[in-house]
């Protein structure tokens, strides 16, 4: 594989993959914060 193809692939797949993964993570964590909301009882005494 030539350097040009490699560079472009890394930019597209690398940047795209990173942002896609973290976007999915943000959705999952948003869901989890709704499913397991904070309760007052969790406050340390």
């Amino acid at each position: 594989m030539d350097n040009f193809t490699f560079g472009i692939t890394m930019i597209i797949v690398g940047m795209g993959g990173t942002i896609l993964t973290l976007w999915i993570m943000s959705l999952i964590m948003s869901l989890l914060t709704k499913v397991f909301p904070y309760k007052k009882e969790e406050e340390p005494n």
Partner: protein
Amino acid sequence: MLDAVINGLSGLGAGFVSLHWSNPIMIVIGCILLYLGIKKDFEPLLLVPIGFGCILVNIPLAGLMEEEGFLRTIYDAGVITELFPLLIFIGIGAMTDFTPLLQNPMTFLLGAAGQFGIFLTLALALILGFSKLDAVSIGIIGACDGPTAIYVASKYAPHLLGAVSVAAYSYMSLVPVFQPPIMKLLTTEKERVIVMSSKGLKPVSKTTKMLFPLVMTVLGGLIAPMGLPLIGTIMLGNLMKESGAVSRLTKASENEIANIVTLFLGISIGATMDGRAFLNPQTLIILALGFLAICLDTVCGVLFGKLMCVMSGGKVNPLIGAAGISAFPMSARVVQKEGLKYNKKNHLLMHAMGANAGGQVGSVMAAAVMLSVLKGMGII
């Protein structure tokens, strides 16, 4: 008898005779690193052992990096095996509070944007004629994350390890110097004064905090398996912290283990800075590219912050985008300081901490994605 005395005396001062021209220069560089660490407080935990290791390895005939030399033994045991950066990651996970990130999960995206400098610099390094794996190791300086940079460089370009590590740690400590001008340049006065209240940030349950490292490990590992050692170790440390069930292990990870490994890691990285191999134009180019990578991270983070500002109808202050890098919590503090500079009542810290924690996760994820893409392309 006389011959024996003369021969014996010739052994004394032999170091001076064997001194290569590059060795004194590297000893001075080692002293500069010590000065930066001790006097200027720039990442002293790393720069002091690195600087001293650099001095040690540039004294000829001691054989510290030769077979069975003590620095070589440490290097082979922990750097070549990638053990040291991974052990440090357990400590980082145990020290990091991801609550601000979980309070506002959209800041994950700022953590992703803050890694774009890695890929842009990688492309630039290729244009400058570096090989593919060398370019990957140079680009990873943009993760602004020492252990990640060391992990990747030691695995795929060990000959660049000294330059890459020194660049990663030195530039990380320069975040308060180079970020503010970039932030100012890329934002308007109107954007900089946008108030982001922390009142809307709700507390996060302990269950969610414990599920985060598990979800991150499983999902991140399935998407980018080549980066699982990085993701897994940082998340193990965080799970131990959040569960509270193994406080002894958590304390050991963030104190004893992290301290011992930092010492060994620093001194063995310094030991790779032998003047004969280190002093060349390539090193200067790597240092310049590393600096560019970290600046590009800030640029991309702020630009993404501007995009979020537009999409949210002006509710997001783009300055927090600058905190989407892995220099935790230094970068968040810079954002807080800059925010206050333009609006005395604007406390951006909690939002910036979210972006900064996102940057921690983002740097690890970016490295994991990069390694997995390389594996997919059959390059590693």
